[in-house]
């Protein structure tokens, strides 16, 4: 039981990828949603939204929105990937996994690896769509850096999803997590609006939100504007990611099938 089985991690990753590619409606949904956000929200706010903060004057709202949407996509798809344990539980497949002679840690790592991969794939599909709307990254280095932060954000939230799913008995919990965890994290992350000049109660909540630092880091890399120093974003995200992985692995190892 101890130790990590790479073959187990690989096969869980493979399963995640195969089922992801086969779920066409999910892929279509993942492309259509950011498309609507950009086409309607982005274009709609573009004319009236004028940034006043230092360093942001003249910035296009559509440009501003893209890193936010990438963050949103990372949040949603990675949480779903973690919560997919609930589906496995519902359809009995979790038991097949749990009676295998494989450590629980390997099972969690396999799921995280799979969720991380599909999550980053979806995030990149948003960058492609944004390309249609005239969004451009400056160079390959920016792309690489973005990918690094995407991995960090995605992994953290997969871990969070695993942690929640391990503590929930059935699918009913999913709606609760959706409404009371995922939506607030999204709205408070600054994905849709800049963090300057907000009332202090709201600022406080925003600073408590891990995704805030994710979106901020993505903006720093993609647009060169940020609220916090990039190194601080990185440190906080790394911390968040580590803690979530540990909590996810711990809760999952305690869960009964």
């Amino acid at each position, binding site marked *: *039981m101890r130790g990590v089985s790479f073959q187990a991690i690989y096969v869980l990753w493979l399963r995640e990828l*195969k089922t992801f590619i086969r779920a066409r409606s999910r892929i279509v949904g993942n492309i259509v949603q950011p498309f609507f956000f950009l086409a309607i929200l982005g274009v709609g706010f573009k004319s009236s939204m004028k940034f006043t903060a230092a360093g942001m004057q003249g910035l296009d709202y559509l440009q501003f929105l893209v890193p936010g949407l990438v963050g949103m996509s990372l949040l949603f798809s990675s949480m779903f990937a973690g919560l997919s344990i609930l589906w496995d539980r519902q359809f*009995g497949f979790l038991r097949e996994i749990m*009676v*295998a002679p494989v450590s629980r840690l390997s099972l969690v790592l396999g799921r995280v690896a799979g969720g991380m991969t599909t999550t980053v794939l979806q995030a990149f599909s948003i960058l492609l769509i944004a390309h249609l709307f005239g969004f451009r990254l400056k160079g390959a280095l920016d792309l690489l850096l973005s990918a690094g932060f995407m991995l960090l954000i995605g992994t953290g939230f997969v871990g969070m999803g695993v942690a929640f799913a391990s503590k929930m*008995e059935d699918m009913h919990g999913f709606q609760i997590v959706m409404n009371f965890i995922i939506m607030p994290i999204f709205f408070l992350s600054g994905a849709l609006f800049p963090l300057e000049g907000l009332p202090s109660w709201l600022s406080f909540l925003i600073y408590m939100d891990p995704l805030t630092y994710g979106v901020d880091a993505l903006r720093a890399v993609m647009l060169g504007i940020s609220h916090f120093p990039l190194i601080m974003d990185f440190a906080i995200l790394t911390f968040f990611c580590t803690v979530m992985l540990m909590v996810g692995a711990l809760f999952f190892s305690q869960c009964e099938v």
Partner: protein
Amino acid sequence: MQAIKVSNLVKEFDGLRAIDNISFAVEEGEIFGMLGPNGAGKTTTIRILSTTLKATSGEARVWGYDVAKKPDEVRRSIGIVFQDQALDDRLTGMENLDFHARLYGMKKDLRKERIKEVMDLVELWERRNTLVKYYSGGMCRRLEIARGLMHYPRVLFLDEPTLGLDAQTRHTIWEHIKLLNKREGIAILLTTHYMDEADALCDRIGIIDRGKILIIDEPDNLKNMMGKDLISMKISSPEKMIKLLSNFEWIKSKRIYDGLLHLEVNKGEERIPFLINLAQKNALNVELVSLRRPTLEDAFLHFTGRTIREEEGSSRERISARIRSRRRR
């Protein structure tokens, strides 16, 4: 070596005894059946033996390994077909097996060879590339049985293998179970609440009710304990026949009822030719002979004091069924 050895096993859920001090052993290559109503403790026993549930007290060994102390070795030694379906229906039949094989650390060549072998065994090789969501209930069951065999386990657990399947499919599954038991020489622990299933498949049966094993024996012995076979004959002169039979000790009772001659005997099927011969030698015309043997149902009724049907609705079982379903989630 004994494939499974259970000694004084107890499992309590919130103070309720789901398993109440049971002991039994399953020999190598044997099909052992746990026959009992829903909520009797069958699935709980399997969960303890498969290391997904901890016993309150007592000891259980699978292939010599203590389930509490050597869970990893136990897991390698067992294959399980769960009561509820446990397949990923977004994958093909073959992918489900491949997933399992990799999870159990099987090497590539062995994996390929074994997948073909087990899929042939359950006659699914032709459908290997079909997504499981397009499989019928019987095919899913067969695939799960094949998967349970993938990693060459020593012991196979089948938890209600034909629950919810139609009669024809059930018989197919039985054939597959018999075949794999013979070919792989694997020990099988099977739970069921179907009398005919236990009768058709098991070398030995343990009747389990309210968490206790009441008796363990071969199906035929269980039936024989229930008493004699009953031969009924429609014959031209039953009175004359009774006189002819007056000197045979193996006939335990003779009576004429409803125009038929009823005889209580041992091993009825072996007595029928003799009886017909005797009648014909004495110019008696035999129109009809029937033999009724005691069934497993009679045995179950005898040991538990009720039939499985009556059991389904009682409140105590509902409580433990609820506990089970809560745990299951």
